[in-house]
């Protein structure tokens, strides 16, 4: 059983070229920040290393950090330019009974993160949901389609904080 600091040191020694940061000064549990293009390598290592054995991806969540620049569009609505979208990975080892949280941030204008669906099958639908709700593109995902919204939904990603609901969808009025 290892805590996040020990896991961070193991990762640091095995991935000297990767940008890895440990974040502990928060009221919630500490997490490790990784680069969006190293997620797959680090995840595979976390799963297969005999000291770590993270065999279970408990949750994969998208987050809109909403930390860019607020501007007004032509219609006068406030939209966000720049800033980041994040993905959080909650991992657990069912054999060694320890947990860790990974975070990766990607640019809001072209959000791309490497998929981990080949490493944990559970990630497949979670990544589709993050794509559906936030528009984060998962590179190497086998089937990156919308999962909850209609397949022909062309009005953006509903959980982004500057999302505007359309007036009509397929002839049906959407607002109350």
């Amino acid at each position: 059983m290892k805590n996040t600091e020990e896991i961070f040191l193991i990762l640091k020694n095995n991935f000297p070229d990767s940008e890895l940061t440990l974040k502990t000064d928060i009221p919630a549990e500490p997490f490790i920040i990784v680069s969006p293009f190293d997620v797959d390598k680090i995840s595979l290592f976390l799963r297969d290393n005999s000291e770590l054995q993270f065999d279970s991806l408990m949750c994969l969540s998208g987050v809109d950090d909403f930390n860019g620049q607020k501007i007004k569009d032509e219609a006068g609505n406030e939209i966000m330019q720049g800033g980041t979208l994040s993905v959080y990975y909650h991992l657990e080892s069912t054999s060694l009974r320890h947990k860790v949280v990974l975070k990766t941030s990607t640019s809001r204008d072209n959000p791309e993160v490497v998929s981990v669906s080949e490493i944990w099958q559970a990630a497949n639908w979670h990544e589709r949901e993050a794509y559906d709700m936030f528009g984060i593109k998962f590179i190497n995902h086998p089937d990156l389609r919308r999962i909850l919204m209609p397949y022909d939904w062309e009005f953006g990603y509903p959980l982004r904080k500057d999302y505007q609901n359309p007036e009509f969808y397929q002839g049906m009025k959407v607002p109350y």
Partner: protein
Amino acid sequence: MGLLDKEFSDGNIIITTTEDLFNWARLSSLWQVGFGLACCAIEMMATSASHYDFDRFGVIPRPSPRQSDVIIVSGTVTLKMALRVKRLYEQMPDPKYVISMGSCSNCGGPYWEHGYHVLKGVDRVIPVDVYVPGCPPRPEALLEGLLKLQEKIRNESMVKKST
């Protein structure tokens, strides 16, 4: 019964009008489309089960819209599902009736403001005969809604549909 037992002659013959006979037949065996949408569907299933026994009013779930008379929209109608609900309704033969069950189906319910995915009332896609309020409505409320629908059918005319 009410409508059919108005007049009996000696030879076990019932005298009534065609309108009353048709209305009686229609309201006494309302087969519902066997489908549910959300938590209201659980209450609807409870209404069908032995304790509340929907079957005593002639309501049985029919697994085909083409052989159904009533569609009970039991739950949150998402925009994605609304197109399917509309198609189910269009596949039903006339005369057909709609019961909107629960707040979501009536007006969007708790999703009325921030539900980016919810149709704010099923009456935006299909015409509703009876609205049953509640979140979710208890089986008694759904039974009351069915009795209201039966009342409506009982007063229908072949010339003009009652409102």
